[in-house]
């Protein structure tokens, strides 16, 4: 009987998440340290596209920081952001074609904004007001938007994975050229839905892109406590699902990896598990203080790989960007945020009676009874109408 050691030594077991991981040989990278692009992997974005994506990433961060401030001021109850993960989120959403669908986790409002969710609607969701597409029924950042082919955010981890696989499977059964891209974090790879989703995707060769945002942490638990395997993309092999790792802080690498995966799915070659190596620069959410569990030095080292800084350096090297453009962009975004926020914050809460709508297509007798009792009670006056 042979004993196989699975211990890869203290380096592997280190609690510290090292930026070097994102530079490993098997990780797809396009941007070089000097800001130039590797021609072998370059997705060949136009100048206008790169500028639009830079704008979208900065917009995501500006909105993110504003949402944190709103929570700190007590104007919203909660926010879960994407600080440091903007290239992964914006680049992957950009790679989708108009007919493709996106199944969010809960950290991808930047993808929703890129696909066309109006900023005011996003703020409506943060306030849970009458303008919220989810009618104020979910926490902030649990949005949905059918018009822009954005699924509905759920808090339980990983549930969207099997759903995205089923959705893409249905498209394939109907002979429609539609790909579903689903986001999840490294923690979700421990869920039964990850297993179920990968397994069904592999068996039925569904046109699904399974995008794992490996940001190093699941609230306070590091990647090493989610898996003993070397990364997550390799898990695809056991399911017959193609796996790739990309530098998630390299916009071009994310676009390239996702475009390849979408093309593969579209031509009938099945699903791809894309592992984007990135880093959660913030806490898990506004309810979390990461100082309690992770070393400051780790954050500092990953900040040097900030995806927005890297893309800006590239744009500067290309001669497409400078301080005046940066200042103008921030001024424009500040005004957009101010106006959208002001409009959203003015809106009333959802009407009291709306609590009973959409449980079923039509409210049955017991919900009608409960609604009538509430509307006849002391809270009926002055709440929402």
């Amino acid at each position, binding site marked *: 009987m042979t004993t196989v050691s699975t211990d890869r030594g203290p380096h592997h077991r280190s609690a510290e998440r090292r930026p070097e991981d994102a530079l490993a040989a098997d990780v797809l990278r396009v941007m070089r340290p000097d800001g130039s692009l590797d021609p072998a992997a370059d997705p060949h974005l136009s100048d206008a596209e790169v500028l639009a994506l830079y704008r979208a990433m900065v917009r995501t961060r500006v909105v993110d920081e504003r949402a944190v401030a709103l929570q700190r001021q007590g104007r919203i109850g909660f926010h879960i952001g994407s600080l440091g993960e903007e290239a992964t989120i914006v680049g992957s959403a950009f790679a989708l074609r108009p007919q493709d669908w996106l199944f969010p986790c809960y950290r991808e409002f930047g993808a929703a904004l890129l696909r066309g969710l109006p900023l005011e609607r996003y703020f409506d969701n943060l306030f849970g007001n009458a303008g919220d597409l989810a009618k104020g029924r979910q926490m902030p950042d649990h949005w949905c938007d059918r018009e822009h082919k954005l699924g509905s955010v759920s808090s339980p981890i990983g549930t969207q994975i*099997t759903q995205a696989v089923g959705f893409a499977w*249905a498209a394939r*059964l109907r002979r429609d050229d539609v790909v579903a891209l689903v986001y999840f974090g490294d923690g979700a790879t421990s869920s039964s839905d990850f297993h179920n989703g990968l397994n*069904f995707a592999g*068996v039925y060769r569904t046109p699904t892109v399974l995008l794992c945002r490996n940001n190093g942490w699941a609230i306070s638990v590091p990647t090493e406590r989610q898996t003993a395997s070397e990364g997550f993309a390799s898990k695809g092999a056991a399911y017959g699902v193609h796996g790739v790792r990309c530098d998630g802080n390299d916009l071009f690498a994310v676009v390239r990896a996702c475009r390849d995966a979408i093309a593969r799915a579209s031509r009938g070659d099945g699903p791809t598990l894309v592992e984007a190596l990135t880093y959660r620069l913030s806490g898990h959410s506004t309810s979390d203080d990461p100082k309690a569990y992770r070393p400051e030095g780790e954050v500092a080292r990953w900040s040097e790989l900030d995806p927005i800084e890297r893309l800006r350096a590239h744009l500067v090297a290309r001669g497409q960007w400078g301080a005046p453009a940066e200042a103008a962009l921030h001024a424009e975004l500040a005004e957009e945020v101010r106006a959208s926020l002001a409009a959203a914050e003015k809106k009333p809460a959802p009407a009291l009676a709306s609590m009973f709508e959409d*449980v079923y297509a039509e409210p049955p007798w017991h919900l009608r009874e409960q609604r009538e009792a509430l509307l006849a009670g002391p809270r009926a006056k002055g709440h929402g109408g």
Partner: protein
Amino acid sequence: MAQMNMVQAINDALRLEMKRDDRVVVLGEDVGKVGGVFRVTAGLYDEFGDERVIDTPLSEGGIIGTAIGMALYGLVPVPEIQFADFIFPAYDQIVSELAKYRYRSGGEYPCKMVIRTPVGGGIRGGHYHSQSPEAQFIHVAGLKVVCPSNAADAKGLLLAAIRDPDPVLFFEPKRVYRAAKGEVPEGDYTVPLGQAKVVRPGADVTIVTWGAMVYEALDAANKASAEGVECEIVDLRTLWPLDIDSVVASVKKTGRLVVVHEAPRSCGLGGEIVSLVNEKAFLHLEAPPVRVTGFDTPFPYTLEMEYLPLAHRILPAVLATAKY
């Protein structure tokens, strides 16, 4: 009219609806080539092919999770869970996702399917092939729950459920799958969800029940009749939203209520029915409402016929209520 048992009637409904609506897809463990472990989907694979009658990996969570995705795409999935006892790996997908999709998305994403699954004891299946978990699904907002007692209702209720805009759990009482034989209308018809049926009129005691226990109630009612007590039996058919008007109308007539179900007593649907009757017909009651149910134990193997609320347990409850 044709003579059919419940297995044949459900099969007939599935075939009819799959012909009528090409969005209907059946998926589950062993539902394809072999036609299901109870043969409910027999012949459908040959008729509709492997893209509409799909043998899946052995994973209830995967079946329901992917079926939700299919429903969001616009298909009408009718997944089968081989035994209701095996449904719990899919519980999160059913209660947190399927049941909540329409609500949590503000109506952006209605999500409907019919989950078929055999329930109930009396087949020597032990704990993991015998349970009746209806209350665990009724308690979470957003689901409809159906449990037919006979072949004609099974067909009409299943057709209604597949066409319903909301997610439906369709519980099939496996003990009477083949025993519940009767006339089943040919072709298309529906039995509306939310409507109970009085299967035996009577003036003295109301028995509310469903599924396989309808037959035990009928047996007890015949024996009670010999002792001069006439039972009215209300077969709920749809467990949620339940037909409270029919229950209350019957109790107002008899003044006495016995609820019979296989599931454990505490926090069971019987408790809810008794509460509703207390709220809506208290002054008509001549006796305290009584529950005759499974016990608050796991479902036993050897002693299953002592666990089940069979006629020999229903009869004394009926007589005591009548004499109260």
